Structure formats: structure tokens, C-alpha cells
């Protein structure tokens, strides 16, 4: 019954999306006012129905209803409750339902609260949101029904991939999806604005909080995903330039560019067409990423349901939505007037420069990700990895970081570097001193060296906007910007340090024996069996001491899951303020010794602290924007009521 309720809600939601589209489109014409009244309620009810449908799927997984195919394929009665729930979206059908749910809820939210834009643009936006939604409803209902029943209920479920039975993976997919799909709002705003030719600062102000919200979730999702890959896969790496990782990085890059260009549009009424295009591109990147991952046309460590039929379906949706939006852009961009002019040395100038750099990086990641797709068409197998992405990306990242340090110090419209000479000299000389010092004391490669120096310079520069201003009067959004920029510096420092200074030991150690890695001494005290709710493991008890200090215990495991049967290594992390000791225990060799793989990674944790700071900066900026908007609204309401009183 629950599965049928979920399915019925899904069909109803799809029908409401169709209503929302038709009503929103007809309302654009003369005399469509009556239909216009339907659009917002349709969006809200559609969101509630989709949410209800997803809730029903969660209930099915919580109860382990084995008569439902998806539950039988992806769950197991002996799984812990949290992983039963996460099993609901740890598969193709469930994650697509999550996708459409987030999309419908986002549509409902804009329908409920967004009042700044002209009503016509708003209706066009909601119609666009519904139009995109319909495609995904069709995909779900026609080719990926999550509520399908089995003719005969299964005796027991097949379980969830043990690699996915991890607390990080419970939150990672929903976080990323809110980010991906949240960008659909920016897409719909862009399409709506193109349709009604209303591209102005109000449009940017209306769109900005939505982009910020999606961007915060994307940032958190990428950070969490990177940390998960780091400790769960047991390779000690934190970024692999895997197609799926790139699929999450590309929308983030586009959304970052969009945030900044929307700022220019909101404050200075410039970059109209560019902002619109980024709005289209950001969500397009989410959809392209999903397509690449789901269709199986690129080989990735993230093996999702690989099914050419589904791939074809999503490709069709891509042509319809992205192709349609880009066509509309090409036809209408000429009629969107250019907006205000500004000089190259100005806040806008710096933002434009960084926008171009971000887009160049996006292009590099896109080309690297798609390159195998192109060469395979000519029967050449290639795999594109760090040797391409790192140096080629750095060509654009380095100038971007430099301008990022300077940009926030500049004034809007026109400025001169002479005015900000003092901070430039401070940041420049500290960075230069660091460059000399690091290259004299160590012999590290050029990229990590640049990374360390730029991180230091940017860290100092990111708080320079405080100079000469009263701290209390500084807007929250400015704090947000400073913290986010500082977060970039922190993450960069972690990446550079990890790359430059990591040490690795692979040793075969008998029980009681010891080995060393970097400043650590590691003693294998014991190997003992241990068990969890659905696995057994051999656990190594390691006593580790840093630089001759007191020993602490760390317990890497080699786990055997039995539903489904699979072996995983659970690395153990010993965290200090200045880095992490990463230990993995392997098999026992023929002579009774155990394989230990140990890494000392100085300051590696800063990568994720940085990611969290970036997201925190986003949250502060969002709070600042929303509060400013509420204030503006209440002032407007007050003046309106005062005017009404005066008129009486």
C-alpha cells in the first residue's frame, strides 16, 4: 500500500508540473490572469507531493519491505537503521527520486517566498522549473520506477555495497543533490528572464540567495565526498580527478563564477548576458555530470546503474533542456542590453577576470573529463589524470588566486592600484619572503611551492578588507566573503603541504615488531578479530608515538561484510593539529608478518577545514543577503502603509 501511495503521489506531482507549465506559459499572453493564479499553488502542491513520495520510499526502506524490487535489490533486514534509510538513495532509482524531490521542493519554495521579480518573469521561471521537472518525472515513471513490486516477495535483500555503509555516505548524496538541483532554480530564473527580457539588478538579487544556497551545499558535498574517498578507499588520496568527482566540481566552478557575476549585476547592473549564460551553464553542468555518470559512457570508480536505455533517455533530456536554453540564449542575448561600463582596474574588473579564469578551469576539467569520450570514438583508449589536470589547471588557478587577493580591496567602477599600495606591499613582501624561505629550506616541486606561498599571501589578503573600517559596521556578507576566501587559502595550504611533505611506508611487520614513517614510530601490538552488526574484521592494534612522545592507540581493520560478501579496508586515522597518520592493515604474508601501509600527511586536514570555512562563508553571506532583503521589504511595507495613511 505504501509503495502504491508513493507512486500515486509521484504521478499526481507530474500532472501538477504539467499544469504549472501550461498555466505559466499561457499566463504570458494577454488575458491569462486567471490561469496565472494557478501557477504558484501548483508549484507548492507539486513540491509537497514529491516530498511525500520520497518519504514513502524511506518508509519502505525503514520497514525493509522485500516485496518492493528496489528494497530487495539494495537493502537487507540486518542492516543498521541509518544505512537502511541511506540505502533508499544509494541506488539509481532512489537517487533520481531524491533529485526530482529536491527540484520540486525548490520550485515550491520559490513559489512561496519569492516576490521581488515582476510577476510575469516569476511565472515564466516557475513554468521553466516545471518544464525541466516533467522530463525527470517522465524518466522516473517510465524507465526507473522506484516503487516497482516484485511478483513474489524476496526472502532476503541483497544488501547495500559495504563501501557505501558509512556515515559520511548517508549525508553526502543528499547534500550534493541539494547543491546540483538547487542550481535548477538559477537555470529557471535565467530562462524566465530571457523569455520576458527582464535582466536587471533585481533579477540578480532574486537569484543570488538561491545560488548561494545551492553553492553552500555543493561545497559541503564535495568536501565530504573528498574526505570519504580519503579514509574509506584506503589509498590515502583525497582527489582522483575521477569523472564523478569532476562532475561535482564543474557545477561548483560554474556556480562560483555565477555567484560573483550575479554580485556585479546586482550592484552595478553590468554583465547581464554573461550572468544569464552562467545561470544556464551551472545547472547544465549538473545534468551533464549526472548523464556521464549514469549512462556508463565514461568508466569511473563510481559504478552506478549502467544502462544504455537510461543513458539515451537522459541524453534526450539534455538536448531538450540545455540545447533549448542555449538556443534561447543565442536568440535573445542580443536583445539583452549590455549594461553599465567599468574600467579594468576596479572591483568589477577583478571579478570579470576571475570569472574568466573560473570558466577556463571549468573548460579544462570538462575537456579532461570528456577527452576519453572523444578519443574512444576514434578507438584510442586514454585515461586523463593528474599529469594533465594539475599543471594545466595551475596556469589559470595561480593568476586567479593573485587577483582574488587584490580584487576585494578595489572599489567599484574605477580605482587605482596606487590607492591600495600598502596592503599590496605587505602581502607581496610576505609572500616573496615565504617563497625564498621555503625554496631554500626544502626541495619541493614547483606546484606545491607556489601553492604554499599563494596560500599564505591569500590568507593575509583575505582579511585586508577590514583595514580602515569599523568591525561592527562591516556587513555580514563581507565577513562571509572574507571567510570563504580565507577558506580557499586554508584548503590550498593543506593540498600543497600534503603533496609536498607526505611520507609513506609499506612494511611487513610481525606482532610486536615496529616500523617508522616520518616522525612516527608504529608498533604492531596485536591483531585481533572483531565484529560489527553485519561484518567481521581483523583489527590491528597499533601503538603510535609522534616524535618519541607518549603512545596512542589506533586500530585499522580489514573487514569482511557478509551481505553482500565483500572485503574492505578500514583505515585508521590519528589526527594531530599538524596532520594525520593514516594506517591501513593488509593481509598476512606467508611468513606470518602483516602488511602495514602507513602515511604521514602533514596538514592534510586543512583541506577539509578549508572546505568547511568556504561553506561557512557562504552561510554568512546568505544570512547577510536575506537579512538585508527582509529589512528592505519591511521598509518598503512601512513606506507603503505610510503613504496609504497620508492618502486617507
Amino acid at each position: 500500500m505504501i509503495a502504491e501511495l508513493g507512486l500515486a503521489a509521484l504521478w499526481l506531482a507530474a500532472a501538477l508540473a504539467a499544469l504549472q507549465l501550461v498555466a505559466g506559459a499561457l499566463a504570458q499572453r494577454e488575458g491569462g490572469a486567471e490561469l496565472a493564479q494557478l501557477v504558484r499553488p501548483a508549484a507548492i502542491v507539486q513540491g509537497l507531493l514529491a516530498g511525500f513520495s520520497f518519504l514513502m520510499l524511506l518508509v519502505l526502506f525503514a520497514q525493509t519491505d522485500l516485496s518492493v524490487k528496489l528494497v530487495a535489490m539494495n537493502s537487507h533486514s540486518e542492516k543498521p537503521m541509518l544505512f537502511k534509510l541511506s540505502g533508499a538513495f544509494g541506488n539509481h532509482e532512489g537517487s533520481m527520486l531524491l533529485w526530482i524531490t529536491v527540484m520540486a521542493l525548490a520550485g515550491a519554495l520559490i513559489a512561496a517566498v519569492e516576490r521581488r521579480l515582476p510577476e510575469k518573469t516569476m511565472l515564466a521561471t516557475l513554468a521553466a522549473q516545471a518544464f525541466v521537472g516533467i522530463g525527470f518525472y517522465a524518466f522516473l515513471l517510465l524507465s526507473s520506477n522506484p516503487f516497482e513490486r516484485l511478483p513474489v516477495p524476496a526472502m532476503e535483500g541483497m544488501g547495500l555495497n559495504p563501501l557505501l555503509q558509512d556515515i559520511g555516505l548517508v549525508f553526502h548524496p543528499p547534500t550534493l543533490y541539494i547543491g546540483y538541483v538547487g542550481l535548477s532554480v538559477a537555470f529557471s530564473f535565467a530562462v524566465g528572464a530571457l523569455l520576458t527580457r527582464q535582466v536587471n539588478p533585481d533579477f540578480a538579487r532574486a537569484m543570488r540567495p538561491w545560488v548561494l544556497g545551492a553553492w553552500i551545499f555543493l561545497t559541503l558535498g564535495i568536501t565530504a565526498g573528498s574526505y570519504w574517498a580519503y579514509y574509506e578507499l584506503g589509498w590515502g588520496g583525497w582527489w582522483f580527478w575521477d569523472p564523478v568527482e569532476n562532475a561535482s566540481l564543474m557545477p561548483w566552478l560554474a556556480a562560483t563564477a555565477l555567484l560573483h557575476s550575479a554580485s556585479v549585476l546586482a550592484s552595478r547592473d553590468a554583465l547581464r548576458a554573461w550572468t544569464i549564460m552562467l545561470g544556464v551553464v551551472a545547472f547544465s553542468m549538473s545534468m551533464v555530470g549526472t548523464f556521464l555518470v549514469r549512462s556508463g559512457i565514461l568508466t569511473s570508480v563510481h559504478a552506478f546503474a549502467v544502462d544504455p536505455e537510461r543513458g539515451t533517455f537522459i541524453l534526450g533530456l539534455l538536448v531538450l533542456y540545455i540545447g533549448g536554453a542555449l538556443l534561447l540564449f543565442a536568440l535573445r542575448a542580443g536583445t539583452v542590453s549590455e549594461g553599465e561600463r567599468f574600467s579594468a582596474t576596479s572591483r568589477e574588473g577583478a571579478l570579470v577576470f576571475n570569472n574568466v579564469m573560473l570558466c577556463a578551469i571549468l573548460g579544462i576539467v570538462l575537456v579532461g573529463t570528456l577527452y576519453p569520450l572523444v578519443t574512444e570514438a576514434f578507438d584510442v583508449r586514454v585515461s586523463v589524470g593528474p599529469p594533465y589536470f594539475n599543471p594545466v589547471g595551475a596556469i589559470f588557478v595561480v593568476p586567479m588566486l593573485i587577483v582574488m587577493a587584490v580584487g576585494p580591496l578595489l572599489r567599484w567602477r574605477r580605482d587605482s592600484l596606487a590607492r591600495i599600495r600598502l596592503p599590496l606591499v605587505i602581502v607581496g613582501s610576505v609572500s616573496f619572503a615565504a617563497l625564498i624561505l621555503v625554496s631554500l629550506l626544502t626541495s619541493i616541486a614547483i606546484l606545491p611551492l607556489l601553492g604554499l606561498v599563494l596560500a599564505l599571501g591569500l590568507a593575509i589578503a583575505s582579511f585586508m578588507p577590514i583595514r580602515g573600517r569599523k568591525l561592527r559596521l562591516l556587513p555580514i556578507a563581507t565577513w562571509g566573503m572574507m571567510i570563504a576566501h580565507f577558506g580557499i587559502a586554508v584548503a590550498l595550504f593543506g593540498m600543497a603541504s600534503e603533496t609536498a611533505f607526505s611520507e609513506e611506508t609499506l612494511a611487513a611487520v610481525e606482532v610486536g615488531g615496529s616500523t617508522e614513517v616520518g616522525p612516527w614510530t608504529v608498533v604492531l601490538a596485536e591483531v585481533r578479530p572483531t565484529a560489527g552488526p553485519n561484518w567481521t574484521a581483523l583489527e590491528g592494534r597499533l601503538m603510535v608515538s609522534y616524535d618519541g612522545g607518549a603512545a596512542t592507540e589506533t586500530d585499522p581493520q580489514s573487514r569482511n561484510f557478509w551481505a553482500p560478501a565483500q572485503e574492505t579496508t578500514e583505515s585508521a586515522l590519528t589526527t594531530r593539529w599538524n596532520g594525520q597518520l593514516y594506517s591501513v592493515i593488509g593481509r598476512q604474508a606467508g611468513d606470518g608478518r602483516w602488511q602495514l601501509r602507513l602515511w604521514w600527511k602533514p596538514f592534510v586536514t586543512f583541506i577539509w577545514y578549508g572546505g568547511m570555512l568556504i561553506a561557512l562563508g557562504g552561510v554568512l553571506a546568505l544570512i547577510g543577503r536575506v537579512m538585508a532583503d527582509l529589512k528592505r521589504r519591511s521598509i518598503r511595507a512601512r513606506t507603503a502603509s505610510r503613504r496609504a495613511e497620508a492618502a486617507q
Partner: protein
Amino acid sequence: MIRWTVWVPLALFMLFIGFAAYQLTQPKDEFIASTMIGEPLPQFDLQPASVDRPGLTTQDLRDGKPRLLNVWASWCVPCVAEAPHLEALRRQGADIVGVAIRDRPEDVARFLANYGNPYSRIGSDDLSELQLAIGSSGVPETFVIDGQGIIRYQHLGDVRADDVPVLMRELAAAQ
């Protein structure tokens, strides 16, 4: 701004769609071929994996005679299935050397007693080091090595009846 530039994003996107659509129509080939083909074998010196056959070194494969190098293991089920076909290859004159992956001598002996022993030498690769070095990603795999110790051909998965003539042809070509 020049007006044609507004068409660039659409044009690039359609190009992508073209390639993606083409790829979707292509059958998916999941085999991963070794990039080591055409490369010389790395230096190695493997201990014997069984009492009645010598171990395996790089020098053994550089005496001018082309050989088949079979990567296998006693714990590997497809290896049981391919055993009669390896025996057929041996009867047709192929010299087969084995590399036992992560195996124990007693298990190797039991396997060879049960399913036959087509190998002239069997080296023991306890940590998959040689396996990884020659670009093999699974068990079983069969390589054609020419007389100078250069890898000429890689067969992925178990050897079936159809593969026997193919391997014999590759072996002759490696002369």
C-alpha cells in the same frame, strides 16, 4: 561583443551531444588491455610455486623461444575451467610457464594433481607484484612473450576452446 559568439555555447554543446550519442550506440568494451604490450618484461626472480617445477626468472624467457605466460591461482574458479584448454595448447607444442598469484604450495600441488599440469615452470607471486608489473588486472590471464622477453599479446579471462587457435597463431607470430 560580436554577435556570433552567443552561438558558441550551443555549438560546443551539440558537439558534445554528437560524441555522447555516438558512444551510446557503441557496445561497451569493459576489457582493460595492458599498456605493456610491446614492452620488455620487468626484471623478476620468482621462487618455485610447486615442488616438481622450477621457479621463473626474466632470463628464462629470453632464450629465443616464444612462450605463453599464464597468470593463475589455485583459488580461482575460471582457472579450473581453462585447465583442459591449456593442456590442449601444450599438446600442440606451446611452452607454457605459470605465475601463481597469492597461493600456497600445498594448494598449488592439489590443484595440479586434480586438473593437470601444463606448465614447464611455475613461479610464485605472493604479493601480485609481477602481475601488476606486467599490466594484468585479474586471474586468469595469458600473455604471449617472444624470445627476447617482450610482451606481444594479452588474453584476458580464461582460455576457451575458441581461443586455442588464436593463441597458437599469436605464438607463431612471435617467432
